């Protein structure tokens, strides 16, 4: 599917604000990097999602406007699902983990994805989301100050024999990429990976390449989408990397 990329400014207090500029360059970088990763998997036939404005969408009854609306709504649901996957199935904070999701990973986008799958003529759809939280100048200054103060406190603690753990932590900005492979019939999330890293940018080709390589490290081969179909390997992914 067309990658969704959003850039946010992260202020001193932690408030976020969407940057209005269309992040086309970042989208293109993410698309190119992910397409390169997919080429490494011989068991997958990747084909781009057709442009809604293309006049040759004969396999679908949807108009171009309807396809755009479907894309927006489905991508928004994927964004929400991948966010909850990160929050509740990744071990960054045990208080937020829902353990049964680790054994019964039942997140789904619902069978409505069939409409897009028909347009793409695909067995599975690959959704991609990228979010960049870019620190404002004020926040960067605060981060710099926190490092200086942290070093000073660490030195004071070491010298004075203080037993307590002292520190001032101002989290930097974050870059997040999430990728999900979705069954084109049920909408079930077959595979999902979310990576978030500080001090990265989706406008930097090296950062994007590094992040996407990390994401696809665990991408399984020999896809078997549905038991009853006994279709092993070579799912056609309805992505849209243009």
């Amino acid at each position, binding site marked *: 599917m067309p990658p969704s990329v959003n850039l946010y400014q992260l202020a001193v207090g932690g408030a976020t604000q969407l940057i209005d500029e269309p992040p086309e360059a970042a989208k293109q970088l993410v698309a190119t990097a992910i397409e390169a990763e997919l080429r490494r998997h011989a068991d997958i036939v990747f084909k781009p999602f057709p442009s809604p404005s293309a006049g040759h969408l004969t396999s679908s009854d949807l108009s171009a406007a309807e396809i755009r609306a479907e894309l927006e709504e489905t991508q*928004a649901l994927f964004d929400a*699902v991948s*966010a*909850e996957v990160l929050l509740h199935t990744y071990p960054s904070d045990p208080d937020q983990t*829902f353990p049964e999701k680790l054994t019964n990973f039942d997140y789904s986008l619902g069978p409505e994805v069939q409409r897009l799958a028909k347009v793409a003529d695909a067995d599975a759809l690959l959704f991609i989301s990228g979010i960049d939280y870019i620190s404002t100048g004020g926040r960067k200054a605060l981060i710099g100050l926190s490092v200086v103060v942290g070093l000073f406190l660490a030195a004071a603690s070491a010298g004075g024999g203080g037993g307590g753990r002292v520190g001032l932590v101002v989290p930097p900005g974050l870059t997040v990429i999430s990728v999900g492979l979705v069954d084109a019939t049920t909408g079930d999330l077959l595979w999902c990976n979310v990576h978030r890293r500080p001090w990265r940018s989706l406008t930097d080709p090296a950062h994007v390449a590094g992040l996407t390589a990390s994401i696809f490290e665990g991408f399984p081969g020999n896809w078997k989408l549905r038991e009853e179909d006994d279709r092993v390997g070579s799912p056609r992914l309805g992505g849209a990397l243009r």
Partner: protein
Amino acid sequence: MLHSGISRRHPVGAAVTRAFLACALTACAPWVQVEGPFRMESQGYEVVLPAGWWREASTENPFLLTKDGVSLQYISIDRVVVGDELPNTKKKFAKGMSPDDVAAVELEEARSGQGIRSFALVEKAPFPLAGYPGFKLAYSFKTEDGLRLRRVQYGAMVRDRVYRVQYQAAARYYFDKDLAAFERLRESFRITDSGI
């Protein structure tokens, strides 16, 4: 923002940001798995909780349940004191208001939430809650992220408080999946002596 209790921590449309920042910037309340009879003495109600859901152990949100994550679905119960200003419309409930008038205020409050798009009312009807004359509202809307949500809200004024029992979920897949569990919870909802 939609409703005072939930909105402060989980503004509509910011769920993705909240999750991606994943407690890095602000402390997140822990979640505890719950099931069965549950009594909220400080809020004056009791309810039977469905199996397989998680409750946010937060003092800020009195009662918030989810199964897959708050941006995909939640059940919440809260109450508003008559005379308190509502966060979006700044309107207030008045003692003795009819259920229909309370529902109208609630509807306007929901419609005025920050980031609400494509709001559509599905149902507004009288409906008893815990044996008290009340109302049912059902509506859908989109967040600023483009996520379409559906919400069912039951409410009733009990003396000088308006109780809200509501369920919100992504319109696709998640709403239908857990609606029955919510309705069973709503049927079990009772106002206790401390709430009267």
